[in-house]
């Protein structure tokens, strides 16, 4: 499991920029970012090289945020690899709330996903021979 940070953004102009500005001044590097939004609000999800520090500075700057763990895996770089993994998870009854890719070392794709059954998910992945991060 790895940690990500979720930040609440009311849809006000420049709110994402403000958030990045805080991280810049804190000296925290962003590894990945994903945004979900409706017309009224959004949630910015991101991974950094120092999540604790990022959380501390974002909270101090008045952002509503929380650390949320994700199941993370290395997906082999071959056609259909991700599809096979998702099918296996689905068969095992593991629901995925959302997923996104993030930068990692090497050629393989790194994917993080949110589920309310992380243990079960990791068991499925191990059985399928997928490397967990």
């Amino acid at each position, binding site marked *: 499991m790895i940690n990500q940070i*979720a930040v609440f953004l009311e849809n006000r102009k420049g709110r994402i920029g403000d958030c990045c500005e805080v991280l810049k001044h804190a000296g925290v590097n962003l590894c990945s970012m994903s945004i979900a*939004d409706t017309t*009224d*609000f959004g949630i910015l*999800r991101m991974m950094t090289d120092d999540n604790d520090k990022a959380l501390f500075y974002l909270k101090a700057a008045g952002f*509503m945020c929380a650390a949320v763990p994700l199941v993370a895996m290395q997906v082999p770089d071959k056609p259909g690899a991700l599809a096979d993994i998702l099918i296996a998870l689905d068969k095992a009854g593991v629901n995925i709330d959302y997923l996104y890719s993030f930068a990692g070392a090497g050629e393989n794709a790194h994917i993080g996903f949110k589920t309310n059954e992380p243990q079960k998910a990791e068991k499925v992945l191990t059985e399928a021979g997928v490397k967990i991060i």
Partner: protein
Amino acid sequence: MKYFQPELETMSAADRRALQSERLVSTVKYVYERQKPYREKMDAIKLRPSDIKGIEDIWKLPYTQKSDLRNSYPFGMMAATRKELVRLHASSATTGKLTVSGYTKHDIDVWADCAARSLVMAGADEESIVHVCYGYGLFTGGLGMHYGAEKLGAIAVPASAGNTQRQLQLLADFGADIICCTPSYAIYLIEEMEKAGLKPGRDIKLKGGCFGAEAWTEEMRAEIERRLGIRACDIYGLSEISGPGVSGDCEYKTGMHFQDDHYFPEIVDTETLEPLPMGERGELVITTLDRTGMPLIRYRTRDIAALDDTPCPCGRTTIRMKRITGRSDDMLIIRGVNVFPSQIESILLKDPYVQPHYHINVDRVNNLDTLEIVVELSPDAMSDTMSEIEAIRSRLSAEMASGISVTAKITLVSPGTIERSEGKSKRITDRRKIK
């Protein structure tokens, strides 16, 4: 038809005063005998019913506030027995409780007379078809105008609120000449009428209307009159006193004729509560002069208005009331519904996912009032999934709809976003241009 009750509407100043005096004296005796809250209030200041000898003594009497009605919820203010009472109406009070109003057969009758006077002022007569699209229910608008129309001998069409397409069909097919609704709904109807290709004068036979239950401007009146080709009269009332018809405009629109043979108005300073000279703006205070179900003595309406006793060309001799220009409390009237910020606050306080830091935005879009509540999420409500935050919003939205009877747009913001202010009034931005 010029007047509905000429002998009462045009009586001489001396006769009017004598009638008011006689009625006040007997009302004070009646409330002292029958309403415990008044007996206590009068005993507390050592005022006996016999000290009130005429209308000039009215200032000696104690005030009644909305909180008196709330504290005696539901029936503590009733003067009549259950056998004598025939109807209850209610409007919202600050804490979610209702303010109840009880009527005897006589009270309904007097109220219907007053509503009929207003209808006649708007141009109605016994042959009129009166289309009532105020809501029918606990709110007094619908039933009040309905009984007024029947009392007049006109034909009442109880269309009630909503379903605009059907309203237009009824207006066109029945050919109503008088309409009763809120002024903002009138403008909305006009727009829908134009969209549907219905022409006033050709397809729509309206010639007058009683518009009330919310604040409006002379500009809105001019717009309704021009686009519908009718006489648009303001009508005022409140359920605590009776309902629509307490006062209303005549054809000259010189201020609303206050039916002061039944309801006696005073204007007082909002701070000192001292009576103000004729013509000055202050809080409107009303005493019911012949109500039997639930008489009210010097009831503080919280509406800001002024009185005018100069003669009106129409020949009616009542005192008149200038347009309401505001409230001395923080009550908002949204689409005709009374909304207190404290009601909104108590709903927010009950929800652990938000904090009671909020801002209320009221606006008028396409002539309909809109309400937005901007509220801070509580810091531990943070979730990384949209559906959980969306659920907080839709639950609040449903709670508002059932708690204040008005649909509100809920906007969630981060903790600390809303400016902390001392006064409650700073929490409200009303962008409607009424004054």
